[in-house]
């Protein structure tokens, strides 16, 4: 229980850090750290009935989110020669304050939603929803395609958090499927970033608007 809560607090902290962070490199590292911490969640949350499935899920998550994604994103940064600044539409302090507001809304929402009894912690659902919203916020408030990939990963981490909390009921197959989807998505986005960069010399997605007729 305490360990689960600790992990959830770390997830919220990493999300807030992402909202206030101005460097792409550190953002990637924070997302990787979040992935590793979340990888431990299924093992910690279901400590009493630990099965091989959870162990496999944990190892797979840590490997993909903690090692493969960061490596891939750093490679994209290097290949596409991305500047190190994040360049947000919404400033860092405003983003941070929005994060706190989103957290409050998530807690408020989860008090009104009927929750299953088997959730590992009462913080789990709010933190999951907070991650989803924070990911969405990162996607809409940052200019660079790379930051949008990071926002997408945070969003997926939220879905994953919720899935792990419900794991006894929901099939882990779903979770594995989501992980695969995200993997493909990040892979495709990594290639797209590289190609956008080669065509237009930068990856600022706001400029893509001018492509339309």
């Amino acid at each position, binding site marked *: 229980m*305490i360990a689960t*809560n*600790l992990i959830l*607090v770390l997830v*919220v*902290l990493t999300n*807030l850090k992402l909202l*206030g962070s101005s460097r792409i490199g550190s953002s990637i590292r924070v997302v990787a750290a979040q992935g590793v911490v979340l990888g431990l969640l299924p093992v910690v949350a279901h400590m009493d009935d630990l099965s091989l499935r959870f162990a496999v899920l944990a190892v797979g998550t840590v490997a993909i989110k903690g090692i493969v994604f960061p490596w891939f994103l750093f490679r994209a940064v290097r290949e596409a020669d991305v500047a190190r600044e994040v360049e947000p539409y919404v400033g*860092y*302090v405003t983003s*941070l*304050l929005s*994060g*706190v507001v989103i*957290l*409050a809304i998530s*807690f408020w929402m*989860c*008090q009104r939603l009927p929750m299953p009894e088997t959730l590992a912690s*009462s*913080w789990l659902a*709010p933190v999951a929803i907070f991650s989803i919203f924070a990911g969405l916020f990162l996607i809409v408030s940052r200019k660079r395609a790379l930051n949008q990939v990071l926002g997408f990963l945070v969003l997926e981490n939220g879905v994953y958090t919720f899935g792990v909390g419900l794991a006894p009921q929901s099939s882990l197959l779903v979770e594995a499927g989501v992980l695969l989807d995200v993997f493909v998505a990040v892979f495709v986005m990594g290639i797209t970033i590289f190609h956008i960069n080669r065509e237009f010399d930068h990856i600022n997605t706001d400029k893509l608007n001018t492509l339309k007729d």
Partner: protein
Amino acid sequence: MNALSFIPLLLALVVSPLLPGIINRTKAVFAGRRGQPLLQTYFDLWKLLHKGAVYSRTTTWLFRAGPMLGLAAVLMAVTLVPLGNFPALIAFPADFFLFACLLGLMRFFTVLAALDTGSSFEGMGASREVFFSALAEPALLVALATLARQAQSLSLSTIFSRVSGGHWLQAGPVLVLVLIALVVVLLAENSRIPVDDPNTHLELTMIHEVMVLDHGGPDFAFILYGAALKLWVLAALVVGMVVPDTGTLWLNLILSVSGMFAVAVIVGVVESVMARLRLLIVPQLLVGAGALAAMAFLLGLNK
């Protein structure tokens, strides 16, 4: 109110000037110097109180009243803060609100006196001080509100006597977040290093120091003493959270006072190992502290 409630007050009045001495000594040790005597602040206060004051002709009564009213405000704040298991001299529901207001009042008079001099440097310092404290104050209030919620009490004395090992086991993450927020507020409010450098010699980059440049003699003694008391009360909040309840009244007091010295040492270490943040980054730090406090509050609400 009983006779024991005077002990935290008396300790604060007598021992608080020691805290800046400990900070300076820690910094000196880190830098490989011998450093000032630990009692340097007492010597300074003694010297300043025996001096006369020089007042510029452009200043009004506000300039003379500022240091006195500031000291009075912080003295009131001292009477609200408990130490160890000794209750504060004055305790009533929601007194933590008055505590924050009194610190704000102290700053308000310092700022008024600074603006009264008409010096542009002092105006700049006043502007920064007010800006930063406007960001630090919500963090302080939300952190204290979280503690109040955890301890199910609205008075500082009962809050700090109730927050104990049990709370740390139950709601450890919440209390850790509150603690971090309080430490950042402590550093910012006392113009210590990540926010302001108390040793800077350039008026352009000063925040707090530049506001009191024109004060001299007894007025400056009041300001120095007020600053030491302010450091003491904010450190008392941090110590009140951390120091465990041993069950013995006097052992608690000894632990708490050594906790205060430990806070001073930690401030000294922070000053020795960290550079000052750029002025643009400081708001991010303070808003971050506020965000941590708000997060702790929300997590504490939903247990």
